[in-house]
């Protein structure tokens, strides 16, 4: 049962050959069996999940079910969930039982999806390996000595290990796509503004975007369909109807123009990854697509621009964690200053502190123009590169990450090297474009992700492009050994 996709499970639920309660119990059992090793969950909500499953079964019986009704999912611990701990992977929020639901939480629960727990993540989504979590690193199911990627490492590992058919993630610089690639699953980050950020604990507001992990593009269409939509509580949410993502999945790819940025295939790209991507492009040629060489000349500036903009926004976003109204509070503060500095000093981990310091510095008097303003100008150049490219092509493809999963601890002490593992994904966040990663083979026995970037609001096309590839290949069906 655990090898079935979300869409297959949904069909079984509708037919009545499977109940949500059975399915949910099966997921909970797999979690208790495997997660002590993987560490992909921070919180598991057995009782709440079973109650939700029973309610879903009643709803299915009453004929009021949708495609997600009764489907168990794992929720990244960055989304607020009323009555359930929402830690954001931080000691700062280890005691935080969210008093309200994020819009995404609300939408998924209303669709009848069954939340089985909250997944581990890099602290406040700052990291590319899931090693910055207060709850310890997550293991990659393909090789427990490697990282699952980050920041949504727990969500990716849980789906890759077949603990749940789907999970949520957030992507600020690649935090959905990079772990999807490293864990051999499908991950989609929609256009900025497509999924509400309300109740999603902010890292960098102008870059953060919620999305989903599944094992297929078709499943991703179901998840995204439920998560997306205008939210009046989010000023940056876009008021425009959500496309029917399922409807376009089967469109043929004949005539599809795929842009291939020459900048993505330079030095630094692992040869095995490059080979897998070449093979995937051949497959697309067979499906009728044409490959067009393009250039994104400012690509090399995206990581530096990102590491100004994201820390700047984070330094301000994380000021609210001050030990006064919620979250960690240092014991016996001797004065107000002590309350602030110790609560924050003890509540945040190293990487978070590093980014807060960089951000505060970049915004401080005398440096604002040189760093923040400059980065926002470069950001426009990066976006304009994409806009020009999309005048020529329908989608842009390349590797999601420059290598397959790296070893735990390998880059933990070298922030800059860690930042470079997001080198292909970051520009997309700066531009706010939709993108996904789909499994495209293996290198040295570990999964390789194909990165597909679309024009604004073309999530439907991305899913179609992914689905057609997955009809022609079976990379997405490979499960890690033992799962």
């Amino acid at each position: 049962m655990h090898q079935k996709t979300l869409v297959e499970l949904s069909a079984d639920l509708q037919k009545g050959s499977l109940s949500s309660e059975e399915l949910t119990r099966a997921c909970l059992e797999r979690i208790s069996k495997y997660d002590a090793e993987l560490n992909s969950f921070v919180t598991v909500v057995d009782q709440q999940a079973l109650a939700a499953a029973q309610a879903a079964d009643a709803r299915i019986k009453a004929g009021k079910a949708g495609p997600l009704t009764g489907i168990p999912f794992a929720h990244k611990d960055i989304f607020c969930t009323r009555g359930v701990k929402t830690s954001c992977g931080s000691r700062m929020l280890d005691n935080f039982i969210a008093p309200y639901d994020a819009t995404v939480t609300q939408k998924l629960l209303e669709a009848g999806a069954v939340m089985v727990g909250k997944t581990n993540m890099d602290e406040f989504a700052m990291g590319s390996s899931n090693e910055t979590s207060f709850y310890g690193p997550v293991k990659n199911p393909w090789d427990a000595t490697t990282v699952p990627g980050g920041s949504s490492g727990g969500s990716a590992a849980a789906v890759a290990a077949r603990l749940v058919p789907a999970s949520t993630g957030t992507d600020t610089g690649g935090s959905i796509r990079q772990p999807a690639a490293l864990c051999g699953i499908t991950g989609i980050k929609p256009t900025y503004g497509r999924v509400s950020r309300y109740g999603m604990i902010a890292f960098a507001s102008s870059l953060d975007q919620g999305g989903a992990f599944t094992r297929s593009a078709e499943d991703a269409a179901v998840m995204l369909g439920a998560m997306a939509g205008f939210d009046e509580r989010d000023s940056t949410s876009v008021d425009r109807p959500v496309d029917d993502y399922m409807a376009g999945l089967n469109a043929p790819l004949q005539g599809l123009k795929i842009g291939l940025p020459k900048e993505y295939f330079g030095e630094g790209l692992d040869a095995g990854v490059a080979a897998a991507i070449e093979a995937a492009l051949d497959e697309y040629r067979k499906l009728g697509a044409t490959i067009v060489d393009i250039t994104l000349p400012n690509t090399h500036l995206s990581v530096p621009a990102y590491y100004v903009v994201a820390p700047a926004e984070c330094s301000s976003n994380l000021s609210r964690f001050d030990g006064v109204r919620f979250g960690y509070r240092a014991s016996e503060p001797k004065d107000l200053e002590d309350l602030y500095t110790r609560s924050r000093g003890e509540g945040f981990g190293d990487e978070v502190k590093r980014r807060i310091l960089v951000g505060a510095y970049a915004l401080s008097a005398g440096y604002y123009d040189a760093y923040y303003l400059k980065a926002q100008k470069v950001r426009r150049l990066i976006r304009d590169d994409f806009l020009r490219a999309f005048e020529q092509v329908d989608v842009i493809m390349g590797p999601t990450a420059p290598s397959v999963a790296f070893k735990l601890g390998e880059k933990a002490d070298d922030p800059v090297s860690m930042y470079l593992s997001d080198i292909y994904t970051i520009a997309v966040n700066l531009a706010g474009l939709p993108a996904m990663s789909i499994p495209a083979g293996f290198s040295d026995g570990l999964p390789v992700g194909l990165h597909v970037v679309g024009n604004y609001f073309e999530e439907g096309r991305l899913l179609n492009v992914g689905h057609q590839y997955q009809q022609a290949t079976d990379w997405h069906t490979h499960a890690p050994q033992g799962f």
Partner: protein
Amino acid sequence: MSFIIDCATFAPLFLTRSTDYGVTMALDASEIKKIAHLARLGINADDIPEYSRNLSDILAFVEQLNVVDTTGVEPLAHPLEATQRLRVDAVTETNNRDNFQQVAPEIESGLYLVPQVIE
């Protein structure tokens, strides 16, 4: 085959390190302390040298931005460049204090308590 991406191998396309770039950009201990204070972030004295090294690395890395000419380029604060939507002036929230204060570290008579504030 190695999975390690040594950032130096990205050169020359991806300039990375201060050493690659030839910029000396260092934050000394007093600057780290100043910024830490600005951010009300307690950091151990022992960790300051490492913060100093890390931050200097990061700043040197982002110095690459200065290579590109951005004369006449408008900063892009938001990808979609949309404009602010306005909310109707109406009360939509009701008293939810008890729920919100369940997660509060220290309260009394409905107030959040902090060490004495002196103006």
